[in-house]
C-alpha cells in the first residue's frame, strides 16, 4: 500500500512526473488550476501506486511526497 501526496500549489504542470510512473497513474488534472494558473499533476488510481517515488524524484518543484 502506498500513497502519493501532491502539493498542488507548488506544482507547475511540467508533466515530468507523468513520464516516469511505472504504473502510468500520474496525470494532469485538466479540470482545475492552481493560483499560478497551472493544471496540477495528480494520481487517478491511487491503489495502483507502488510507492516507488519515481514521480517525486523527478519533480523539479518538490511538489510530491510519498508514503508507504
Amino acid at each position, binding site marked *: 500500500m502506498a500513497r502519493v501526496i501532491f502539493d498542488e*500549489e507548488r506544482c507547475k504542470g511540467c508533466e515530468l512526473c507523468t513520464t516516469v510512473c511505472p504504473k502510468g497513474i500520474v496525470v494532469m488534472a485538466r479540470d482545475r488550476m492552481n493560483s499560478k494558473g497551472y493544471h496540477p499533476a495528480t494520481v487517478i488510481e491511487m491503489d495502483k501506486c507502488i510507492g516507488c517515488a519515481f514521480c517525486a524524484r523527478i519533480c523539479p518543484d518538490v511538489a510530491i511526497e510519498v508514503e508507504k
Partner: protein
Amino acid sequence: MTKVFTRPKSLTDKPFHYCPGCTHGIVHRLVAEAIDELDIRERTIGVAPVGCAVFAYEYFNCDMQEAAHGRAPAVATGIKRVLPDRVVFTYQGDGDLAAIGTAEIVHAATRGENITVIFINNAIYGMTGGQMAPTTLIGQVTTTTPYGRDPGKAGYPIRMSEMLATLEGVAYIERVSIHDIKHINQAKRAIKKAFETQLAGKGFSMVEVLSTCPTNWGMTPVEALKWLERNMIPCYPLGVKKEVK
C-alpha cells in the same frame, strides 16, 4: 504508513522561482538530500551564483553567500580558509563557471581548495534570456548564435570536467545527468560523494550536472529531457573524470 519520500530538511519551504520543468529544482533537491544524509546542514555554507540559481540562498536551508557572477569559487575559498571545519559548496551555472568564472574555478581546482562545486551545464545562459554559453552545442541556436553556433566563429563547446581533471589539486570530478530516474539516482550518489570528498579533506570536488532549460531551448520540459539525452550526452560524456582514492 511512513513517508518514503519527503522534502529534505536542507531545503527551506520557499517554492522555487524556476520555470516549469526546469531541472535546477531537481539538482537543488539532490544537494539538499546529500546534506541531510551526511547530517552536515548546520555546518554547511553555500555560495549562490549569478544565473537562474541566483536565489539559491532562499532555498538552501543553511547559511549562504551570494557571489558576484563567476566568482563563487573565490568566495568559497575566502569562507573555507576562515572556517576550515565547515563544509563549503558553490552552485554555479555554465555561464558563471565556464565563462566569466573560468580563472576562479581553474585556480580553486589547482589550489586543491577543499570545497565542493555543483556545476549546472544547461548549454545556455538561462537567466539573461538564452544567450550562448561556452557549453552551447555546435549548431545550437541561441540569441547570440542566431544562425546556430558556428565553431569557426564562436568556438567549440568546452568540457570543463575533462579540463579540470588534468589539475593536480582535483580530488573528484564526475559528470552526471538528470534526464531519467536512473541518472537522477546516479547524480545523487555523485553529489554525495563530492561532499564526502570534502569531509575527508581530500581537496577540490565537482559534479557537473547536465541540465535543461526548457524556456530558452524552446521546448516542453519533457522534450527538453529527451534533447538533453540525445544531444548533450554525446558531447559531454558522463562518468567519473578523476577520483583520488
